[in-house]
């Protein structure tokens, strides 16, 4: 196991990530006013996914983890993307 020799994010990187997250949160709120119909949810999910990815990568140090852990987390995201996609296929074709 190499997890005791991790590199960690710098303070500057953490603050930058925080600012990006706040910006994306603002965009999420503004996105509601765009009136893109059925794609409103898709847009909100896209922005949320980007935020989650950034949090996982930097705040949860996934960037510095072993490849297998990154693959496992990526697999989980893929699974949920497929599950949500299948659910919304129902709504698009109903």
């Amino acid at each position: 196991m190499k997890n005791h020799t991790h590199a960690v994010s710098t303070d500057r990187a953490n603050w930058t990530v925080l600012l990006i997250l706040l910006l994306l949160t603002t965009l999420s709120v503004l996105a509601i006013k765009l009136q893109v119909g059925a794609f409103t949810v898709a847009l909100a999910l896209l922005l949320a996914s980007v935020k989650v990815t950034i949090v996982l990568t930097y705040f949860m140090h996934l960037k510095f983890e072993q490849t297998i852990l990154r693959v496992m987390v990526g697999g989980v995201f893929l699974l949920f993307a497929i599950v949500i996609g299948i659910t919304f296929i129902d709504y698009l074709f109903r």
Partner: protein
Amino acid sequence: MTYTSSEPLNYLNHKTGLWSWLTSSDHKRIGLLYLYAITIFFCAAAILGLLMRIEKMAPGQTIMTAQTYNGMFTIHGIIMIFIVVIPGLAAVFGNIFLPIMIGARDVAFPKLNLFSWYIYIFGAILGLYSQFANGHSPDTGWTFYVPYSAEASSNVVIALTAAFVLGFSSILTGLNFIVTIHRMRAPGMTWFRMPLFPWSLYATAWIQILATPIIGITLLMVMAERLFHIGFFDPALGGDPVLYQHLFWIYSHPAVYVMILPAMGVVTEIFPTFSQKPVFGYVPIVFSSLAIALVGYFVWGHHMFTSGMSYESRWFFSLLTFIVAIPSAIKVFNWLSTMYGGSVDLKPPLLYAISFIFLFTIGGFTGLALGSLATNIQLHNTDFVVAHFHYIIFGGMGFGFFAGIHYWFPKIYGRMYNFKWAYISWGFLFTGFNLLYFPLFVIGIQGMPRRYFDYDPKFQTGEFLSTIGAFILIAGLAGMISNLVYHARKGPKAEANPWHGVTLEWQVPSPPPHENFDEIPVITHEPYLFDKPATK
């Protein structure tokens, strides 16, 4: 339980007293704590099931009102699904045997393991409390479908909270098992030298940690709907009741595999041992477990064919439902092929394991009738579904559990049960089970709806036979449980390896010592080679 001082120290006697059990982080003791709790809840829910069958012995009201019947089938379902079957095999046999089978001294997080049990007990007590608090037992069925669950005046919130809490226990157990399997396998135990029961637990654990949060969030949404009228599922507020069904079944269909995969793992251990022959197709069994876990994620919509889903979604889910049958069929083929040409020894564990194949196959084939769009329209929400479900869950998980407890009983307690008693109990159980559930297929096809406390007299023959079956089944359960309970204390001492098994749990004394191994074993070859020792 008392032990004489002449007995060697083991996990049962190295510390004594109730407190030592309630604070133990020994994975085997925690497994037994689950076993005792699950057995008690199972007996309670089985009695509720018997009372429901007595009510339906004749048309009209017999021993309870319609509202009582609604409460009973709800709490029967909640206890059986969330408290007995979902934790069931993984929490009991997984806890007791996973570390031993992979050559570890304990799970990765022993204290978290004990904490999981306490969460489980808290959730289970909440579930029971929901039945009795204020005299308004929940009456939604274990599926909590909206809009009724969002409006009913019964104890729905308490029952939802119970299911929510129980989910945490399931997630933590799954997490513990995944880390244990990744990090704590003995030297030399590569992935493809790992026995197949741990493989089934691994596949199950992924479902537990990935799917369970979805039901947690969904149940919270129903609570929010009830308490704050947010409108997730209310069309008048822009919501959609079918969304609830999507979210519920995104968890609850994979949960069926949480129930059945460990049972498949148990019987996969039993067939080679009682055939004294290597398991047929080790690698296909591994990948079929993983395939079931993966594809099982994408078939939830087959519970909703008549709920107003789009046509495109219906054929998509129907197609995937047929595909998920393939890995299950691969397993059945491999189990039969393992026995073929072997020295088959029809001891009680094998008898239960063969019964598992028979009952699970009936459940599987009738599942295809429900997965087909055309026949589903006729069969949806009838007693056919009840019969199919019980053949899968009770015939599969239940008989898998019975097979497992008869297989590992001498290892757990160091004592042997009475074979004659076990065979007779099996006869009652198998006969009672089929007499109880098979008539429900017939009256279901004829149109008898599920969850009705009264029925048209034309269904009486089927309902009557089913109730007789319930009595026989309960007699079999009583015989089996009394045999095991009595002989856990009074049975003759068992050898360390009475079945001549070759996996690691059979290489340690019975009962196993506190930390399983004096020295961690080194694994030199794949499992199930009956002409080679398991370790060097």
